[in-house]
């Protein structure tokens, strides 16, 4: 994905090394999970985003907090793609790979492109670490490595220790600053300002000034190493991206989800109740919301996933914007309470930050194999609307859509994101509350002070008493909340009598109520946007994707279109019901390709709904699609 260097590298000022301009670059920091790779990756991302590049990131870390140091299981990496053009993915191949130990070398070097820059902390390539990574000899001495990459062996641990000497740190603490040494070096290599990272270090270690000072010294030592040693003959710049005009910030998917929920509650004129149970990769939503007390957000860390969902049912009954988030194993446990939400027709949102499964599976790796779980993972006919975010920033918007649909149609709504979106980051145009119209929420008013019954939402017509299951034109029932005089009523998980909501097991009533729930959810199709298609409106090939694969698939289709291939792209964000024009769209192409990070969840639904013989591209590796995987499949299908 990264662009070639511009034809003529700019000459620097006298005494400085040449500065070459690139369209984009992909960097990956990798090392042991105790090496602080996520920290420096995030810092580089923040600095690049604030500089004005488009950025896309892929943090990749082990499920074990601290696997034995130096082992393959303990390798943690952070990849980021920054660019002067619009980008959608973290990049297929790495331009600059920073490697902190032999295990990281072994698991990452195959992603470095030929001719890429390989920076190695040679101090960690000792016999012990080589053995832990399964090497009998030093792979960096290999001629193939030397001929394939621009190799820089840097004694980072020693130089870091030297740079912090005199601060009174233990040798261990001194060595821990080496991640900032590596960051400083890469800052020099890509001509970045260090100021905001220095500010961040000061703030982060404000209670421990000597550690702060040590990290800053290591950072500067790394920068100066690049500047002054002979090893690096030139460095690079990636100019600001030509993004759509506006004010931007960087955001991760989980942050965007949390902010979207609070925004939605504000738009509804209500407060947010969020209950969760710690689970990777969804916990950051709970963390983010638990800091937002001044927005009247109530967070409840429940005793288990079941209680989290059950408390959401209670909060929804009580009139809150009620939300829970989890990942696959937790979603399984929530199924029963979710069914209660469907039966009681209360508005609530459930977020599935998908990860590799089944069972505990791959906690920190991404997958999108829960679509059918969301669709069908409950007893009996229990329809539920499903929306899916397509990028980290889109989580902000789809979280609001989920809340809107929930309160407009009085139903639980699924929001699907995934580990890649949750931890990934991208620039987002900063929204303005003034541009976001309120969501209309109507609660029946109950009795006037004189005892007269009022039904100001018009749902009761000529009725003189409150009817909890009388439906409006969208088939939504009234949201009467406890504390309202005159509306005392009982709801529950037993089948309801149409209109009154009393317990009713009569055959005809059950049929009617099942169909009411089915038709209500199906009718949402009339209140969501039509599906858009990028590319020709009909032709040889439609690539149909959904959720977090948007970036890779869009990039792949664009490359194919640029080559003159007849291919169109439709990316779904509304999974149930589908946009009402989707059936027409999929029939207008000779072939339909559905790339998914599963064995074919969407393909099953498309085939079942539209009798279209779609072809799957199914990657099940705990990783997002590479753009090249998409283009290869397009080539194959158009051959």
């Amino acid at each position, binding site marked *: 994905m990264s662009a070639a260097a511009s034809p003529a590298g700019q000459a620097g000022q006298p005494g400085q090394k040449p500065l070459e301009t690139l369209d984009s670059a992909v960097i990956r920091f990798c090392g042991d999970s105790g090496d602080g790779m996520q920290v420096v990756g995030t810092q580089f991302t923040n600095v690049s*985003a*604030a*500089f*004005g590049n488009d950025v896309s990131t892929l943090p990749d870390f082990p499920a074990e907090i601290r696997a034995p140091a130096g082992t393959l299981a303990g390798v943690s990496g952070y990849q980021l793609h920054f660019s002067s053009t619009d980008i959608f993915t973290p990049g297929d191949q790495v331009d600059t790979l920073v490697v902190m130990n032999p295990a990281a070398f072994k698991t990452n070097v195959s992603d470095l492109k030929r001719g890429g820059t390989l920076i190695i902390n040679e101090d960690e390539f000792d016999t012990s670490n080589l053995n832990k990574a399964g090497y009998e000899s030093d792979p960096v001495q290999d001629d193939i490595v030397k001929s394939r990459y621009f190799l820089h062996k840097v004694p980072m641990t020693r130089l870091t220790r030297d740079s912090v000497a005199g601060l009174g740190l233990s040798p261990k603490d001194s060595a821990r600053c080496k991640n900032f040494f590596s960051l400083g070096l890469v800052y020099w290599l890509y001509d970045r300002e260090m100021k*905001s990272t220095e500010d961040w270090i000061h703030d982060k270690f404000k209670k421990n000034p000597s550690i702060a000072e040590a990290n800053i010294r290591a950072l500067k030592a790394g920068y100066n190493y690049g500047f002054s040693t002979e090893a690096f003959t030139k460095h690079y710049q990636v100019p*600001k*991206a*030509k993004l*759509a*005009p*506006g*004010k*931007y*910030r*960087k955001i991760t998917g989980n942050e965007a989800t949390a*902010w979207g929920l609070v925004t939605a509650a504000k738009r509804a004129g209500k407060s947010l*109740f969020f209950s969760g149970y710690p689970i990777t990769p969804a916990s950051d939503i709970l963390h983010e919301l638990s800091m937002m*007390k*001044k*927005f*009247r957000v*109530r967070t*409840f860390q*429940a*005793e*288990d996933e*079941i*209680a*989290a969902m*059950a*408390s*959401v*049912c*209670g*909060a*929804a*009954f*009580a*009139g809150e914007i*009620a939300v829970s988030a989890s990942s696959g194993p937790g979603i399984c446990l929530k199924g*029963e*309470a979710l069914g*209660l939400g469907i039966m*009681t027709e209360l508005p609530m949102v459930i977020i599935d930050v998908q990860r590799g499964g089944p069972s505990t599976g791959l906690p920190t790796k991404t997958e999108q194999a829960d679509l059918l779980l969301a669709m069908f993972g409950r007893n009996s006919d229990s329809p539920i609307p499903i929306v899916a975010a397509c990028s980290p920033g889109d989580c902000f918007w789809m979280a609001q859509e989920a809340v809107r649909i929930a309160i407009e149609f009085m139903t639980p709504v699924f929001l699907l994101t995934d580990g890649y979106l949750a931890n990934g980051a991208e620039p987002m145009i*900063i*929204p*303005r*509350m003034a541009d976001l119209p309120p969501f209309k929420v109507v609660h029946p008013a109950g009795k006037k002070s004189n005892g007269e019954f009022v039904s100001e939402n018009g749902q009761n017509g000529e009725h003189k008493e409150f009817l909890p299951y009388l439906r409006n034109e969208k088939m939504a029932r009234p949201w009467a909340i*406890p*504390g*309202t*005089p005159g509306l*005392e009523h*009982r*709801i*529950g*998980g*037993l089948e309801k009598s149409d209109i009154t909501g*009393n*317990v009713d097991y009569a055959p005809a009533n059950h049929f009617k109520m099942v169909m009411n729930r089915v038709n209500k959810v199906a009718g949402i199709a009339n209140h969501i946007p039509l599906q858009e298609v990028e590319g020709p409106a009909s032709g040889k090939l439609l690539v149909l994707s959904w959720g977090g694969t948007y970036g890779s698939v869009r990039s792949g289709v664009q490359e194919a279109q640029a080559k003159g291939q007849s291919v169109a792209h439709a990316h779904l964000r509304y999974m149930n019901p589908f946009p009402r024009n989707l059936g027409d769209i999929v029939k207008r192409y000779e072939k339909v390709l559905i790339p998914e990070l599963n064995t074919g969840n969407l393909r099953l639904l498309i085939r079942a709904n539209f009798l279209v013989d779609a072809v799957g591209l199914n990657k099940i590796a705990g990783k997002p699609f590479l753009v090249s995987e998409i283009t290869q499949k397009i080539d194959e299908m158009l051959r």
Partner: protein
Amino acid sequence: MSSQSVKPSPSLPVLQPKDFASDQEIRWCPRCGDYSILAQMKKVLPTLGIPREKFVFVSGIGCSSRFPYYMNTYGFHSIHGRAPAIATGIKLSRPDLQVWVITGDGDALSIGGNHLMHALRRNIDLKIILFNNQIYGLTKGQYSPTSPLGQKTKSTPYGSVDSPVTPLCVALGSEATFVARSVDVDIKHLTYVLERAAHHKGAAFVEIYQDCNVFNSGAFLYASDRDVKSDHIIYAEHGKPLIFGKDGKKGVRLNNMRPEIVELGKGINVDDLLFHDEKAPDPALAFLLARMRQPEYPEPMGVLRAIEKPTYDQAVNAQIDNAIAKGGEGDLDALFNSGDTWVVE
């Protein structure tokens, strides 16, 4: 008595028990102990000075859990075992409501054991009423977590080999701030205990011995039959000695950390007995009483523990109020624009 958790509205019309009856036909078996509990509840609620719309009854699954349908208040008949969690969502969202949880021995102690424990230890202001009939009634007669060893039921034709739990001990072990017990047909005592629970600020746990006359008839006859009960139960009253027996001649005293039954007179007087202290900060005494089971001991009735402690719902909402008092109401535009931002022309 501690202060009420919901402020009474003096201007409201005085409510009667019948105002709390819903229009639904009651479908418990004839002579079920649940009828009495329902009747006492309808008696207690109008005395609290709380408007009817401020009550919410939440239940799980089981015979007792049909209770909300028969109360003309807000009600939520939910799923098996989860009532405490659902009620927690309601109470956290709306601290102004008085929230009751109606549950049974299977619902609260088997499938919902986890939720019960956590609701109690958080001290969220819920009134949890456990109807203990030592059987699964709705599913027609399997043994429950409180069924005695050896009990023959549909699922234990050779007798139960499962050791039962004592609900009061579970509650005390979960750091409950209010723990009490009564019997379905002991109308006056049950009314008193329900009133005390209603006025407690925090998680109140009440176990009611309830007769399932169809699947486990007479399980608590020793505690309900007028002719025998005085020898098998003991009323624990705060500040009073533990005396029982038909003519009040028997008492409980402490001997090496163990309760001991003694006859009054014969050199033993009232001052030698154990005096009940429901306000003891340490639950050891209450636990000791809760462990007393017949036939060895009389079983305690009344309020075993009632201590004051900050409630979870108050603490959660206080953090929000404090954050707003300190930093002002949240401003989303300010949040969106916080941190590093940049402008593309």
